């Protein structure tokens, strides 16, 4: 894991940063294909592991998720690559959030939820009995759809994670500052660290939540539609931030917005919900691919249908 | 409990419980005693005679107030728990039969008439049925609850057997309700302790009772000399012998109780003991002390 302090202070933009611009996929085709060029095309089972691809930090293998017996997501396998942004897209109810939650055991909190298959983090089975979900979440953080700062001061929001995990930090003040800088929020709040986090605007709140998450120095950050409650300007800021974070963190983002997936991610996984023989809907991974390829030349017909259905 | 000392230096607690009818006497006693022994903590509870004996026979209290003598089952309970006790009569009460102020006809009632009204299964609904000379006024009956010692005594005295009574009367544990009831209905007839009549003498009229020896009005003198028959009754306290032996403050309190009985009865507005009763009280206490 990269040195946090270094990363947080870094402002210059790394060379593989995707361009932050909205564009019809067609127009962007070459740019994108070039950017994530070393990642090989993924088959429907989503094993995008060609030579040269960064190592997988999290790896799903044959993962199914059940809600009190209902199989919401079926047999999903996919790698999450280090220091890359992986986007999960697909229609509502196809299990994007469900899959995201398996990656840091947040579904432990849902009564009746059960995971089968193997989810591993750096080779360790996340669901092995001796694994402590709290340790898992310390390393794999999460940002939610609706900004959810604690009704505490901005400072306490950020300091909460280090405090509860008993993290050794030299000076908490410095640590909070670094985290807020890392979330590109420092300049806006430095004068009012003691004021309530809820008094910030929606976009600022969401960045506060990101700051709070990186304050515990996770390796992976999961984001579930982090911008859907925000206006375009705030969204733009968060997207930009994601690129910066991707230099030091591995990011998985669920989004409804295909443009957003196209803008921010290196890889995109397309999920859909399919009705099986018994008439029950199950979520399924259709295709995991390099983002540029998935949006311009998807391997799967269903991906194409979904994308063109929206793109005209 | 606690240790006592010389007079004025006693401490510890005295626990009194039992009948709510007798409670005013024990409260008055405690109140006066407190001036002499301020460090003795006396509490008086009102669990009823039955509830009081239950605690008493479990050794949970030192003194039990009772509006009736102890029953066999209670004696057995005390014996089983090895609680010896001394029965003391501390005051008299004259159960007073009252009617409405506007009642001009009923000056005196015989026990037979009372029985006719109150007996089990009685269908008397009008004063005329009590005595043909009375007007045809609706009869409204008021009396204490069937679980009270007062009821037991009255039914035994008038109807010949404890708990033998008609049931269709307004019953209340709160004598003030009975006072209000009789005061509020022209044809009202009720009975309760003399104190409640005295306090409300302006609203009620007491009826003379003829128990065979002519009409007698309830009064302190009549209750004392035995002429107010059959409705005059004694009130008791029961003292635990063990408590008297082991807790000097209990003995001290009970002796004080007996020694100041006239003042206590006066403060509680009950009918004082006769000279003979007082002598008996002293003797019983002496016997208990051994």
């Amino acid at each position: 894991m990269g040195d946090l302090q270094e990363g947080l202070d870094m402002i210059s933009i790394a060379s593989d940063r995707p361009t932050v611009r909205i564009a019809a996929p067609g127009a962007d085709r070459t740019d994108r294909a070039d950017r994530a060029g070393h990642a090989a095309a993924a088959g429907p089972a989503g094993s995008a592991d060609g030579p040269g691809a960064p190592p997988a930090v999290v790896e799903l293998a044959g993962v199914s998720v059940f809600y009190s017996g209902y199989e919401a997501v079926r047999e999903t396998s996919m790698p999450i690559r280090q220091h890359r942004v992986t986007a999960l897209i697909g229609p509502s109810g196809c299990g994007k959030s469900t899959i995201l939650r398996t990656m840091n055991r947040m579904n432990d909190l849902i009564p009746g939820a059960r995971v089968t298959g193997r989810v591993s983090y750096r080779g360790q089975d996340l669901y092995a009995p001796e694994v402590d979900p709290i340790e898992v979440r310390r390393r794999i953080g999460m940002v939610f759809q609706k900004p959810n700062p604690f009704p505490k001061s901005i400072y306490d929001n950020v300091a909460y994670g280090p405090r509860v995990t008993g993290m050794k930090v030299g000076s908490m003040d410095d640590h909070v500052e670094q985290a807020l800088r890392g979330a590109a929020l420092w300049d806006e709040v430095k004068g009012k660290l003691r004021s309530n986090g809820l008094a910030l605007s929606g976009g600022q709140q969401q960045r506060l939540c990101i700051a709070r998450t990186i304050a515990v120095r996770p390796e992976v950050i999961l984001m579930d539609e982090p911008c859907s409650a925000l206006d375009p300007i705030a969204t733009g800021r968060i997207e930009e931030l994601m690129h910066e974070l991707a230099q030091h963190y591995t990011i998985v983002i669920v989004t409804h917005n295909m443009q957003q997936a196209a803008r921010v991610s290196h890889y995109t996984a397309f999920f859909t919900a399919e009705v099986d023989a018994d008439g029950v809907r199950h979520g399924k991974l259709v295709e995991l691919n390099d983002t540029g390829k998935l949006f311009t030349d998807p391997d799967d017909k269903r991906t194409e249908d979904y994308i063109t259905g929206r793109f005209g | 409990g606690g240790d006592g000392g010389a007079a004025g230096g006693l401490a510890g607690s005295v626990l009194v419980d039992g009948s709510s009818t007798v409670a005013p006497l024990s409260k008055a006693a405690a109140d006066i005693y407190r001036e002499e022994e301020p460090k003795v903590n006396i509490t008086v509870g009102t669990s009823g005679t039955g509830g009081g004996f239950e605690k008493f026979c479990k050794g949970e209290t030192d003194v039990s107030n009772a509006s009736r003598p102890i029953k066999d089952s209670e004696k057995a309970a005390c014996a089983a728990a090895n609680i010896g006790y001394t029965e003391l009569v501390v005051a008299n009460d004259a159960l007073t039969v009252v009617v409405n102020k506007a009642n001009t006809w009923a000056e005196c009632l015989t026990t037979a008439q009372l029985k006719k009204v109150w007996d089990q299964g009685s269908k008397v609904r009008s004063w005329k049925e009590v005595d043909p000379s009375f007007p045809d006024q609706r009869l409204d009956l008021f009396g204490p609850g069937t679980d009270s010692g007062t009821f037991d005594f009255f039914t035994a005295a008038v109807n010949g057997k404890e708990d033998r009574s008609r049931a269709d009367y307004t019953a209340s544990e709160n004598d003030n309700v009975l006072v209000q009831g009789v005061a509020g209905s022209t044809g009202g007839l009720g009975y309760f302790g003399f104190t409640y009549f005295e306090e409300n003498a302006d609203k009620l009229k007491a009826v003379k009772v003829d128990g065979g020896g002519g009409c007698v009005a309830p009064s302190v003198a009549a209750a004392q000399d035995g002429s107010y028959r059959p409705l005059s009754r004694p009130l008791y306290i029961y003292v635990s012998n063990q408590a008297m032996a082991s807790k000097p403050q209990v003995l001290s309190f009970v002796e004080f109780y007996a020694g100041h009985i006239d003042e206590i009865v006066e403060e509680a507005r009950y009918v004082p003991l006769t000279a003979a009763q007082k002598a008996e009280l002293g003797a019983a206490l002496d016997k208990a002390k051994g």
Partner: protein
Amino acid sequence: MSLRRGRRRPGERVIEALLVAAAAVSVATTIGIVVALVEPTVEFFAEVGVVEFLTGDRWTPTLDPRSYGVLPLLTSTVISTFIAVAIAIPLGLGSAIYLAEYASPRTRRALKPLLEVLAGIPTVVYGFFALFALNSVLRGIWPGSDQPDFQNILVASIVMGIMIVPTVASLSEDAMTAVPESLRAGAYALASSKMQVAVRVVLPAAVSGIVASFVLGLSRAIGETMIVTIAGGLSSDHIELNPLRAAATMTAFIANIGQGDVPVDSLDYRSIFAVGSLLFGFTFALNALSIRLVRRFREVYE
């Protein structure tokens, strides 16, 4: 970089044990109640037949001839509860709708706790109020031969009803305020008047909470003791259907014998445990029923 439990977390375990223990207290309470009731009740039924108890129409355990038919107590309990609830539900629901839908938030914040004062007033106070204040008014309204008794079920029930108003109002109001604002907005946007919003949208949406408040009010009425003891009367020798007459409810009977002069080790006294068991069973059944009911409504509306 191990994900195993790094630090042991014994604290978490201890706390969880503590929490379970706290929750177990309520179970212990129920067990305690059952234990306290069972033995004397069994002794009671050794002498009195269950059938006589449940079907007899004369309850005179301290009066000759002894009779142990609980129906008079049961009837008065049902009648008094019914009247109390018939007063509390409209008043409580009306107040709740007013507070939730009409009053400004400020008024609501001020009035609701004030209304809740009514629920906290000692029942002894209510009892004497019923007996000495309200009853004189009632007796003034009905002079003549069917004038209410000095103690009667009606006056006790009215005051119980008033006592329960805040229980119904407060919980119903909570349920109605919990109805999302978006439903109201939706209804207003469909050209509903305020009353239509309240009655056709908010009320149905809050129905499970409202029913729950009714049930809670009902069980408070059944279990209320001091008011009926002081103002309701003691007679139980026959089934009294006229609420203007004095009659003992189950609770009033228990309270009276409990402080009366009856020897404790007697059938007379043990009868309070039989009545207590019946009362306990009664409220138990009622609660079970209500939980069903609430759940059913909830299924429809959520």
